[in-house]
């Protein structure tokens, strides 16, 4: 190989360690010394220097974003509890925790897990449903609109690229931002104001999702100043796929077809960029702008081509562009690509730029030669560009050709398995949690705290966001994100249910989507944060009528710099919680993703974000008619609290508002919780529950108030009737605002009370009150002479006013 105008030889054979590192830094390769040395050794064996195309290809393929080196690498973990130290070595953290649980649970309805672009579970005898959640954090910090739009665009392509392509049915979005009310002068130099980021990110998801015709039906927003300079943008897509289209297989001789958008300089180094901390001078070419209509056209036609069996495999161009997509498909065969055949937006791209560009809206197909003409015709008919750029071979090599010059020739095996496994140290010093001093509050203080909780950014209504998304397109959203008893609705639904009747004609089944996230807990205890997130996601789904035995979950880790042992240690603990809870709840993980290196610098000082584990849940519902919403339905109905209320205020909304030090972070008791979840499902299917709401942030006071004001009804609650843990007596404020897991609030028609109680026999539940006909929300403890009284209308306004932009 020789240097030409378009392809340069990179001399690395004789470089010293220092020079190797310098090369990595200068070219934004994000490769470590060990990795650079592995490359050097490989080319020493080949007795030649690599080309720039080869170096860039390796950097992309080995990037944290594509390879997940940290979580699949070696981790030497030490857990310190007081003076006790426990050591453990992980060869591959993912395989030994999250994936291990899935393998051990071995559910036969898990059709494709942890191997494709999304996880797939069984929907019915003929179809599967696929779900994937991705993050797109760094681009969203720089260009909120473009960043989040390409985030949602990318995860939709994951669903198009699962198996032979699924039809997207719904999107989810979860964001973490800094406080939008921050004074402008407090925003670090060079960063956008959090409110601008919120508005930009929401518009980006809105414009892309709406134009794609996919309803955004579920989500969450979390505000914490730790995300001011490094917001988190999680986007998810769920789709439906015929069971016989789940497997893909590339044969040698298959042609490589690139479809959709043209290739430009956009997003060069996106994959390696995501492993670099953000600062004022972040790279501008990493920003991509999406074009949803191009992607929509691809979606429309590719599903037709799929049904005509015109191709054998497909994947999306995500991080790493063609390099990753072709590399992935050709891993077992080999591939030759003619780079000058790739359609370009404009001239002047060098071969390596063409190969790793992250231009949006592109998919790569493996097409048997006999279908060559037909597949291009069908795309052309709807004005979609589709161009053959090469073929899959059987030499197990990656060969790239540009203007008749071979610019890359490497073994697929080296490319995919040659990355040295790093060894990282992880330490976790488990903080001992202490109970807070008893929180004593008067009636009026409780009233105030209730209003403050409802107005809190992490509890308040997100209607401003939800309404901008077309959450009803496709006509299949039967349990909606905003709920009420008429059409003028605003209550916070726990989960969304999609009834895919336009795709699966005659079906009665539905698909539930929900999520759980609470970084506040993670500041104290990442194990409990992870466990709580898993339970919350399941509780949310169960509250609308899901069968916990038919649930699956996804993990999305957003963490700080994993090179810091304490940060990695907190991640190991969270991963352990994932294993434990997955096993205990008997709920498998089916897919996941991690985004590490969420670190930013202000004034030369580096900060990592508060760790965030998003758990997204998906399940199949037997009969969508048996689903319920959370607003109270009728005066006179009885209110029950299911589960035990414990003294768990650590990381709670009340602790934040009242600045309470100490407190126990909510624990998860999977056995107790699961028993309750199973019985709720039974009771809902016997029509014994009128409304049900998950109890989480803000505790019972918030959850019960939400059920009341969403229905514009009153409710009378006897606080003394709420069953609490008996170890220590709890104050009224603690009972009302504790965020113990495992609790639901349900409304029961008086005539059904007996049957209802029968079902919940032997679990902890308390009958706490009834729906009031005088439109007053009342919490009363005669024992403690506490009486809190509020109007539903007032509380609704308080809850709505925070984000009423």
């Amino acid at each position, binding site marked *: 190989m020789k240097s030409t105008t378009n392809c340069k030889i990179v001399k690395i054979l004789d470089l010293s360690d220092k020079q190797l590192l310098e090369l990595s830094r200068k070219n934004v390769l994000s490769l470590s010394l060990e990795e650079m040395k592995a490359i050097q050794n490989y080319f020493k064996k080949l007795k030649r220097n690599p080309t720039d195309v080869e170096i860039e290809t390796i950097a992309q393929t080995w990037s944290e974003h594509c390879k997940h080196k940290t979580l699949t690498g070696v981790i030497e973990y030490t857990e310190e509890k007081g003076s006790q130290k426990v050591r453990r070595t992980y060869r591959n953290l993912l395989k030994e925790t999250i994936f291990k649980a899935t393998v051990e649970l071995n559910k036969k309805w898990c059709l494709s897990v942890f191997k494709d672009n999304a996880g797939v579970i069984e929907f019915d005898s003929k179809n599967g449903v696929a779900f994937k959640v991705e993050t797109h954090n760094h681009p969203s910090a720089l260009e909120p609109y473009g960043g989040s739009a390409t985030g949602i665009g990318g995860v939709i392509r994951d669903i198009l690229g699962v198996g032979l392509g699924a039809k997207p049915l719904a999107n989810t979005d979860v964001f973490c931002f800094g406080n939008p009310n921050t004074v402008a002068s407090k925003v670090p130099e060079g960063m956008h104001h959090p409110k601008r980021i919120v508005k930009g990110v929401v518009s980006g998801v809105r414009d892309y999702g709406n134009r794609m015709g996919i309803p955004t039906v579920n989500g969450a927003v979390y505000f914490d100043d730790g995300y001011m300079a490094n917001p988190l943008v999680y986007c998810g897509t769920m789709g439906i796929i015929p069971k016989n289209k789940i497997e893909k297989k590339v044969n040698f001789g298959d042609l490589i077809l690139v479809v959709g958008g043209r290739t430009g300089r956009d997003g060069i180094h996106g994959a390696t960029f995501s492993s670099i901390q953000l600062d004022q001078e972040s790279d501008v070419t990493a920003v991509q702008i999406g074009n949803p209509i191009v992607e929509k056209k691809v979606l429309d036609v590719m599903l037709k081509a799929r049904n005509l069996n015109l191709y054998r495999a497909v994947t999306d161009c995500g991080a790493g562009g063609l390099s990753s997509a072709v590399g992935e498909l050709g891993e077992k065969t080999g591939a030759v690509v003619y780079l000058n055949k790739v359609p370009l937006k404009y001239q002047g791209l060098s071969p390596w730029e063409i190969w790793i560009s992250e231009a949006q809206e592109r998919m790569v197909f493996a097409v048997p030669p006999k279908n060559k003409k037909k597949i291009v015709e069908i795309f052309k008919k709807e004005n979609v560009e589709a161009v053959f750029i090469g073929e899959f071979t059987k030499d197990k090599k990656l060969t790239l050709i540009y203007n008749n010059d071979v610019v890359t020739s490497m073994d697929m095996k080296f490319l995919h398995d040659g990355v040295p496994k790093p060894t990282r140290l992880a330490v976790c010093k488990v903080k001992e949690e202490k109970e807070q001093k008893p929180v004593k509050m008067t009636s009026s203080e409780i009233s105030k705290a209730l209003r403050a909780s409802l107005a809190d950014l992490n509890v308040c209504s997100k209607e401003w966001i939800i*309404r901008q998304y077309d959450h009803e397109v496709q*006509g299949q959203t039967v349990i909606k994100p905003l709920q009420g008893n008429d059409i003028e609705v605003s209550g916070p639904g726990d989960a969304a249910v999609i009834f895919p009747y336009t795709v699966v004609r005659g079906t009665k089944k539905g698909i539930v989507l929900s999520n759980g996230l609470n970084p506040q807990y993670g500041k104290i205890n990442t194990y409990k944060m992870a466990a709580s997130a898993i339970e919350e996601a399941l509780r949310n789904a169960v509250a609308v009528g899901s069968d916990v035995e038919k649930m699956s979950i996804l993990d999305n880790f957003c963490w700080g710099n994993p090179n810091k042992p304490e940060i990695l240690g907190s991640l190991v603990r969270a991963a352990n919680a994932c294993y434990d809870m997955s096993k205990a709840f008997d709920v498998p993980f089916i897919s996941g993703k991690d985004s590490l290196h969420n670190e930013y610098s202000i004034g030369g000082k580096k900060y990592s974000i508060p760790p965030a584990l998003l758990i997204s849940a998906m399940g199949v519902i037997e009969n969508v008619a048996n689903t319920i919403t959370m607003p109270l339905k009728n005066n006179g109905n009885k209110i029950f609290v299911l589960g035990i209320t414990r003294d768990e205020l650590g990381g709670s909304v009340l602790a934040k508002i009242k600045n309470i030090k100490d407190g126990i972070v909510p624990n998860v008791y999977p056995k107790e919780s699961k028993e309750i979840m199973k019985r709720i499902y039974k009771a809902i299917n016997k029509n014994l529950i009128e409304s049900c709401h998950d109890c989480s942030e803000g505790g019972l006071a918030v959850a019960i108030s939400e059920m009341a004001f969403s229905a514009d009804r009153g409710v009378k609650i006897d606080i003394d009737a709420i069953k609490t843990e008996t170890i220590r007596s709890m104050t009224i404020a603690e009972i009302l605002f504790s965020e113990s897991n495992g609790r639901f609030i349900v409304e029961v028609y008086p005539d059904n009370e007996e049957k209802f109680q029968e079902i919940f026999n032997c679990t902890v539940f308390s009958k706490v009150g009834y729906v009031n006909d005088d439109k007053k929300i009342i919490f009363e403890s005669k024992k403690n002479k506490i009486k809190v009284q509020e109007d539903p209308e007032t509380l609704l306004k308080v809850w709505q006013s925070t984000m009423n932009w």
Partner: protein
Amino acid sequence: MKKVKTLILRTAGTNCDYETQAAFELCGAVVECVHINTLIEKKDKIFEYDILAFPGGFSYGDDIASGKILSNEVKNKLGDKFKKFALSDKPIIGICNGFQVLVKMGLLPEPKLFEQISTLSYNDSDKFECRWVYLKTEKKVKNESNCIWTKNLPDIISLSIAHGEGKFIPNNKKLLNSLNKNNQIVFRYSSKDGSKPEYPLDPNGSIEQIAGICNTKGNIFGLMPHPERYVFALQHPAKEGFDGEYGWGKIIFQNAVDFVK
């Protein structure tokens, strides 16, 4: 029995084709979703069909203005065919983006004129919004509207809307008067009790709360709300409907299918 053939026009950015197809099929029609390129290629293909539907979505991204590029394309490339179809009294429906297309190309309010004399502009809120609204209906029986699509509906129904450009504006008072006089304003945004609504029940600030109109003959119907999203009671926020199973949107599609039969 006669097969009722429905054509749903598709192009880049069409979204609501699946559910519109499902709605027509539920009412017994045979449906084909046809890409505009196919119609441009086979210009008389449209006459194989009894009903024409312009579905919702974001045709060509709604770039420039909602429905603008598609309305120009149809008018410039297939104008005479579509006009002929419209004047043959066959049912045509335009939902949301489809309504915008019908208005901007001029098939509504009057296909004989075939000129844009009204528009659907940005919501007063300048926001895209998705919500359910109440609609006051004017029906053939009561108000002698000719609209074949809205027969047998109750006085007030609810449907979902999802748009950023739904504010109906006629070009002058005279047109507004004649729309009123001819009972062409078949849907108006309303309060639950039928009184004049305020935002958000009046979601966009349309002149006289106009949500849907038909031509004088009553075969062409355009509306911003999405009846195809309410063919089952299950789709209603409170699961309300008729016959325990269906949503009121179904009636609209049924009317057209029955009309052809």
